[in-house]
C-alpha cells in the first residue's frame, strides 16, 4: 500500500532541510532544539541509516569533540563534576547538549532529504523548479556521474601501486599524493573531452525547461511536519 504513495518532490524536501537548518541556528533554548533534534534525528536515522552508517560515527565523534571544545570555551557556572584537575561546569554541559542537538537536527534533515531523493532528481528539480543556471546543473550532474568512474580509477591506481610493491591503502602524504594526482589527471583529461562533446552537441543552445513547483499530499505532509515542529518548539513561550 505504502509503495504506491508518491515521495515528496526534491524541491519540497530541499526547502524542508534548509528550513530545519535555519531553525537549528535560530533556536537557542535546549527545549526548542530538543524538539527539532529528536524529530529529525530519529526520522533521519530511520530513513538513512542503511545508506549512511558513518553519520552515527561522525555524530558521536562530534559530540566528544564538542564537549572538549565546550570545556575550553564555555566552562562557566556552578561546578557539576570534579575529576582530578578537570572541573566540569554547567556551561560546558549546556553547550555540548545544545550543539549536539543542533548538529543532530541538521544531519537528520539532510538524511531525510537524501534518503528520499535520487541525485539525478535533485538536479532536475533544482534546474526546473528552483531555476539554478544550466552550467551549474551540468557541473553537478557530471560530478554525480563521476563518482563511480573515479571509484573505478581509484581501484586501477590501487592495482598499479600493489604491482609496484607499494601499499594498497594510502597512509602517508606521499601515498595520498601518488593517488590524488593520477585521479585528478585522469579526471582533467576526461573533463576536456566531455566538455568538447557537450559543446559539439549544442550545450550553449540548450534551453532549460521551467515548471511550477508541484504541491500535493506528500508536500502538504512535509509542510505540516515542519509547522508542527515550529509550534511544538514555540508552544512553551506562547
Amino acid at each position, binding site marked *: 500500500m505504502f509503495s504506491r504513495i508518491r515521495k515528496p518532490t526534491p524541491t519540497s524536501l530541499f526547502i524542508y*532541510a*534548509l528550513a530545519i*537548518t535555519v531553525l537549528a*541556528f535560530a533556536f537557542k533554548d535546549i527545549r526548542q532544539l530538543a524538539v527539532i533534534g529528536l524529530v529529525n534525528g530519529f526520522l533521519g536515522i530511520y530513513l538513512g541509516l542503511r545508506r*549512511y552508517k558513518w*553519520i552515527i560515527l*561522525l*555524530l558521536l*565523534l*562530534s559530540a*566528544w*569533540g564538542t564537549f*572538549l*571544545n565546550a570545556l*575550553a*570555551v*564555555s566552562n562557566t557556572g556552578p561546578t557539576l563534576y570534579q575529576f582530578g584537575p578537570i572541573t566540569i561546569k554547567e556551561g560546558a554541559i549546556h*553547550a555540548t547538549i545544545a*550543539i549536539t542537538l*543542533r*548538529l543532530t537536527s*541538521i*544531519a537528520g*534533515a*539532510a*538524511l531525510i*532529504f*537524501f534518503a528520499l531523493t535520487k*541525485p539525478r532528481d*535533485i538536479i532536475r528539480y533544482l534546474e526546473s523548479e528552483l531555476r539554478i543556471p544550466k*552550467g*551549474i546543473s*551540468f*557541473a*553537478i*550532474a*557530471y*560530478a*554525480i556521474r*563521476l*563518482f563511480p568512474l*573515479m571509484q573505478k580509477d581509484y581501484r586501477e591506481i590501487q592495482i598499479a601501486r600493489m604491482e609496484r610493491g607499494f601499499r594498497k591503502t594510502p597512509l602517508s602524504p606521499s601515498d595520498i*599524493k601518488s593517488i*590524488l*594526482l593520477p*585521479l*585528478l*589527471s585522469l*579526471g*582533467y583529461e*576526461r*573533463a*576536456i573531452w*566531455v*566538455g*568538447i562533446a*557537450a*559543446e559539439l552537441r549544442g*550545450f*550553449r543552445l540548450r534551453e532549460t525547461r521551467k515548471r511550477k513547483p508541484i504541491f500535493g499530499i506528500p508536500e502538504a505532509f512535509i509542510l505540516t511536519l515542519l509547522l508542527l515542529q515550529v509550534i511544538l518548539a514555540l508552544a512553551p513561550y506562547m
Partner: protein
Amino acid sequence: MVEKHVSTRKLSLKYTAIDFAMLAIVAVVSGIIFWATWFIYDLGKGIGGPIVARLISYGLWFIGAPLAASLIRKPLAGFLGETLGALVETIIPTIGGFTNLIYGLAQGAASELGYAILGYKRWGVGAGALAGALAAFPCVALDAILFGEIATVEVMTIWLVAAIVSGGVYGAIASMAAKAIRR
C-alpha cells in the same frame, strides 16, 4: 620575462562546457576531501583540542577554491569550485548537512577575493596560498555565529591564525597539484 603563472591573456568570464566539466572534477575531489575532513577534524578536536584540529583540518575545507581557480583560471572559478565542493559534500552527506553550503559560499567568496586582489593575473602557488588563507576569516566568523565557538580575543586570534596557516599551506598544495596536472 613573464613569470610562468602570471597570465597575460585577456580576462574572460565566458564559461564553456569544458570549464563546467572541470568544475565537476574539482567538486567531486574536494567534496570527498571535505567529507573525509570531518573525521580528521573530529579526531583532531578529540585528541589534540581546538587549535590542533583547526591546524590540521581547516585548510582541507578551503582547497576547492585554489584547486578550481588554478585549473580553470577564470574569474569566479574559485567561488564556484568551493561552493560546488560544499554541495557535493552536502549530497554525500555529512553531519554538517546544509550548513556546508553556507560555509562553502562564504569561503568561496573570500578565496575569490584573493584572486580578485591579484587582478585575476596570478594563479600560482602564492595566489593559492592567499586564497586558502583568506577563507579562514569567514570560516572562523561562521563558527562563532552558527556554533557559538566564541572565546577570549587571545584564543580567537590563535584559532584564526591556525586556520590561516592551515588554509595557506593546503591552498599552496592544491595549486601545486593543479600545476602538476595542467599541461
